[in-house]
């Protein structure tokens, strides 16, 4: 049950065509070592779920710029010109989901909920093709859950059991995607012994984590 492994153990888990959730907000809190690994492997046709496509030289943005991504499910692509360019050229499919809806869809996927009932997007093109519902006199969209084959999580500190702690604004999507994928890989800045992260500050319990790699980036 030793979860602490090298990148080489993660490699066979990553394959063309997978749906991958990646933590981070404009690159803050993204596991750059695992991004490196995907780049080195030259994976193709990935579906990436994350907050945004970051910048061309950072986080998810590097995967876009390198052509690894077939589809991106994100809330924002404006900081990465490559995303817009590939979208217009038809080589990248972009599904834009409002940020609060997106994170809630992932949370639903990881929490066994069948969808999200949100007012966000009502009366906009976001509602196209979606079921609407009237509840207590107000109109809502039903947004479907998201799950992934694998979640790539960044954590500041992780114990050998997988209990993870996220500093500052690196939290963002990380603790939520750790609920919503079949395999959860945590890349961490620091690995500590069990007991060094107090049960009060653990944000992702180790039971959710399959593999831990010490960040090398």
């Amino acid at each position: 049950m030793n979860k602490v492994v090298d990148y080489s153990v993660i490699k066979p888990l990553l394959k063309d065509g997978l749906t991958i959730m990646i933590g981070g907000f404009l690159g803050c809190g993204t596991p750059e070592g695992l991004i490196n690994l995907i780049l080195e492997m030259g994976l193709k046709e990935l579906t990436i779920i994350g907050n945004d496509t970051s910048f061309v030289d950072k986080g998810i943005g590097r995967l876009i710029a390198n052509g690894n991504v077939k589809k991106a499910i994100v809330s924002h692509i404006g900081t990465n010109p490559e995303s817009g360019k590939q979208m217009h050229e038809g080589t990248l499919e972009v599904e834009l989901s409002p940020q609060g809806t997106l994170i809630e869809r992932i949370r639903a996927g990881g929490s066994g909920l069948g969808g999200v009932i949100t007012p966000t997007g009502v009366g906009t093109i976001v509602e196209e093709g979606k079921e609407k519902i009237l509840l207590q006199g107000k109109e809502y969209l039903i947004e479907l859950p998201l799950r992934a084959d694998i979640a790539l999580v960044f954590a500041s500190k992780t114990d050998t059991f997988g209990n993870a702690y996220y500093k500052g604004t690196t939290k963002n999507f990380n603790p939520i995607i750790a609920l919503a994928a079949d395999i959860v890989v945590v890349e961490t800045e620091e690995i500590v012994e069990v007991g060094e992260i107090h049960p009060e500050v653990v944000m992702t319990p180790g039971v959710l984590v399959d593999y831990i790699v010490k960040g090398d980036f």
Partner: protein
Amino acid sequence: MAVEAKLAKEIIAKRVAMELKNGQLVNLGIGLPTLVANYIPKDVYVVLQSENGMVGMGSTPEQGKEDKNITNAGGQYVTINSNGAYFDSAFSFSLIRGGHVDITVLGALEVDQYGNLSNWIIPGKLVPGMGGAMDLVTGAKKVIVAMQHTAKGDNKIKKNCLLPLTAKGEVDMIVTELGVMLVTEKGLVLTEIHKDTTVEEVIQLTDAELIIDENLKVMNI
């Protein structure tokens, strides 16, 4: 009244800052709205939210003191005040969608007399995405659009937004360098104008039908 962009933005930011009240939780959008923070009156204490995961956002760190783990929703380094808190995106949007944010200040590509807002897409041209804007506009108690009155000669305050909407009927107030407009049931009411402009000029630069408030005031900035 023709002012350069920098001064226009200063006028707008100053006026928006006057809307903030003690104890409020406020989200300032990227760009012009960020400037509002510079003009908050000394006796008004507000808490700034950053939708990527913090309340109690502080000022920009000194050079060399940046912490890579502390950024704002624009991806820039920031600091946190001693009364602040960090959280994940799900909690962040519980605050936003749940009506816990008192005021959100955003820019616009277009806004109309019905309180509709367009600020996230120009189909076929510019598709940045909505980020957190749709949730902010839908969830915040008060929505203030802060923008220059016109863009490259085009009037941005429309009868009806032509671009895809960010949210329908959620805008409460529009602040430009020319004045202040409130979205009401009767229509868009001009309540304040800048001292260097005229009602006629504002009407001319506004596509929306403007109701001139009977107590029209000069912007007190």
